[in-house]
């Protein structure tokens, strides 16, 4: 594989990843007064994570059934406020076990 092309591609990827992250941080420094905009930004993380998780989680493993089992395990454990690592590792174990059985 062409080494020069790989390096150029990686450089482009790094650039278009960095720009959207850094521009708002360095350009906007004032507190936003608008109640609507403040609420909007406050709700953003939940909307982003929800949309990134569903429905894509169902196709994240080898089969729909193992993904459903893993998702169910994650939902139950997170409902009872188990930590990030516990939830993620338990989901992996459940998916692994279900795929062994199938």
């Amino acid at each position, binding site marked *: 594989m062409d080494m020069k092309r790989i390096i150029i591609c990686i450089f482009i990827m790094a650039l278009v990843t960095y720009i959207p992250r850094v521009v708002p941080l360095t350009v906007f420094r004032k507190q936003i007064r608008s109640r*609507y905009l403040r609420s909007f930004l406050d709700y*953003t993380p939940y909307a982003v994570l929800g949309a990134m998780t569903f429905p894509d989680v169902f196709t994240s493993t080898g089969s729909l059934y193992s993904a459903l089992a893993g998702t169910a395990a994650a939902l139950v454990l997170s409902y009872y406020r188990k930590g990030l690592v516990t939830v993620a590792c338990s989901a992996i174990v459940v998916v692994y076990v279900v795929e062994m059985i199938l």
Partner: protein
Amino acid sequence: MDWRKEFGRGLKDGMPICLGYIPVAFTFGFIAVSGGLPVWAAFLISLTNLTSAGQFAGTNLILLGAGYVEIGLTTFVINIRYMLMSLSLTQKIEEAMGTLKRMLFGFAVTDEIFVVASLKPGTLRAVYLFGLIFPPIAGWNLGTVLGACISSVLPAALQNAMGIALYGMFIALIVPAARDSIHVLVIILIAVSVNCMLKYIPVFSFISSGFRIILSTIAGAGCGAALFPKDDTEYVTSEAEWCEK
């Protein structure tokens, strides 16, 4: 206040993210190298990109032999959501934080770092943020190198199972919040519904997955802000609750 204590608090908050990143980065390194990239390239991508979705998509396009413009545009669209996150964080970061520090921290705005930082009560100090980003960066690169080097040894079943790790983390972040607040639950349901519509209704099939996330986020958070605008007092209450935990 003692900066070491604040830095240490950041490190502590960053550790779960680090542990969550290792399997995902491992998967990335594994996929990149088994797809045909050299180990150094997989490592360089993780070192300079520090992102999951954009990096997976970009690497896939490199392996498919796509052009520079296509790679740049696709990765950019997937990463536009970071603009919303960075904009949201500017509201919590101490105003005195200098441009150079902002540029350094900006490199590490990921979904998980954003969520942990934005849910922390009070103003965010630079020392805390640098403590917070250190473990995830280390974990991301370590995981990539491990995955890239071990790519031929790991059984396929374990590879499949690891695909759910990142989503498990996302679920662990949103479910407790949805349990506490019906508003948050409604917002998540709106975002997920819009995402499903855009994904499965054929008319919208031209919309890329990155752009889909952006539209769903705007719909969810936009409806939420219109239906349930927050009072300034509400921020104070929720912060007090956080402190008690």
